[in-house]
């Protein structure tokens, strides 16, 4: 019993040392996986911003019939299991599926689109509530200083900018750390669609503990680093 645990510790330690060596020496495989992960999820976040932020502004700043229903709809989708969404996307994008002609299955762009769909509910819901939480008096304030409807909305958006940024970052983190879509839509093809989470899942199964440990450290490090940067930004404000 004692021997087993010391063996485990030894091999864990060995793997950890090796993992750091991989990171510090800039191992090309580790670097390319990290870079791809950032690109794929970064693009997903940009894509999601295109439609999510206008939608968040509509829901957060205007009152209209059906607004509550739409908000509830997106709110409910926040926790959608990534494998379920991955399955749906797989069926849509596969060659025989309705979107098969675009050839997006097993491509980085396919993952980006899938992740964009995944994080849309987060961005819409958090973005709308960031705008709603702006003091309603500031709306009247902008209007009494001569602002048009659009200028008023922009002033409110500026006022909520930090919290909207938080919504965008939360969405990026979700995309960056998800596994289901990257696996099912991307297929974990080495040098093509292999990202941090898919590598970690598969290399662990293959016993490549040092590599996956390195990747996990990078994954956590990036997510943590972003939070840290945001906190510093909040303090600077």
């Amino acid at each position: 019993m004692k021997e087993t645990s010391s063996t485990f510790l030894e091999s864990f330690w060995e793997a950890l040392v090796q993992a750091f060596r991989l990171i510090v020496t800039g191992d090309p495989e580790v670097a390319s996986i990290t870079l791809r992960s950032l690109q794929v999820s970064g693009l997903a976040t940009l894509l999601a911003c295109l439609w999510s932020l206008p939608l968040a502004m509509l829901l957060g700043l205007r009152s209209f019939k059906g607004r509550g229903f739409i908000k509830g709809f997106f709110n409910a989708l926040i926790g959608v299991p990534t494998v379920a969404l991955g399955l749906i996307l797989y069926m849509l994008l596969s060659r025989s599926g309705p979107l098969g002609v675009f050839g997006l299955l097993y491509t980085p762009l396919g993952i980006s689109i899938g992740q964009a769909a995944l994080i849309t509910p987060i961005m819409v819901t958090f973005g709308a509530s960031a705008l709603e939480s702006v003091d309603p008096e500031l709306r009247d304030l902008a209007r009494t200083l001569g602002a048009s409807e659009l200028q008023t909305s922009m002033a409110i958006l500026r006022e909520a900018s930090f919290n909207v940024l938080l919504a965008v970052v939360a969405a990026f983190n979700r995309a960056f750390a998800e596994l289901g879509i990257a696996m099912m839509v991307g297929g974990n093809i080495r040098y093509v669609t292999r990202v941090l989470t898919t590598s970690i899942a598969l290399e662990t199964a293959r016993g490549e503990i040092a590599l996956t440990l390195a990747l996990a450290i990078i994954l956590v490090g990036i997510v943590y680093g972003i939070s840290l940067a945001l906190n510093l930004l909040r303090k600077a404000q």
Partner: protein
Amino acid sequence: MTSPFLQTKGLVMRYGPVTALADVNLAIDKGETLALVGPSGSGKTTLLRILAGLQSPTSGEVLVQGRREDAAGLRRIASMVFQKTAVFNTSVYENVAFGPRIRAASKTEAQREATRALRKVGLEGFEKRRARKLSGGEQQRVSLARALAVRPALLLLDEPTANLDPANASIIERIVSEIGEEGNTVILATHRMDQAERLADRVAILNEGRLVQVGEAKELFRRPSGFLASFGQLRNVFQGSATLSEKGLTVITLEGGVRIEAATNRTGDVSVFVRPEDVIVSKSPIVSSARNMLKGRIVKVEERDGLVWLAVDVGQELAAVVTRQSFAEMGLNLGLEVYLAFKASSVEVI
């Protein structure tokens, strides 16, 4: 006949079953400062918001120089300063320059207007400070400067000193008074009659959405209507005659023979006002710097908003307000003999 600068005709505002304004007809001339006085919920804010073009009335109309204006038109003419200080979460300069920029002024013109407005409220040098980091009084001055920077033809002030300490309140009052003297048209909502008298040319009294009385403050005080006398904030308004004492203080003999000291140099017939909040109640005479100490009997006790309002007969019925705790701990009650103390400087002479 020339039409007044601003006129409301039959303004009615209903929120469901609640009538906030009922048939308000009001006229104000160019360059005039008008105070809207009334208790909370009397419709002051609603009236200002309609004049600011921030909401449309249920019925009735607003005329500017004889022409009917809708909300969008009024927003071009008027600018409002809100009771609850609201500032954009940016620098003082950005706050004040917001209006001139929106109104399509050039960058240099916006800068000139913002600088002028900041100087007006004594905040030059504060440009780069974050507005939210300023004190409440300074933030309210930013609000005032921001409204002034668009040079509104009509400036609407909703209780601009309500949330401020006396020192900051008097700074705001001085600025408002200067704005008025420069020929601007100002409508000021306040629940303080003394403030209305100091700042306004005319006073309009609003109660439960109706215009009760309009006229010069002195006139309204000299002949207080039933409403004016019963209006909680206007308790302790008395008529009297002031004479200068040899010690340099003014002694005012009120109707009913009560003599009080006041820090003023006015003599002759005056109206005086003592804020019930400024009156200290004690069961035995106290030694303090307060120049006035009057002995009397509690003739009325009324609990309202967590405070206990006392009417004490000192030869005149004088109102004082104490907390429920003080009331209980001191064992105050109807018929009890008490002493009322207040400073000469707490006596507002109108």
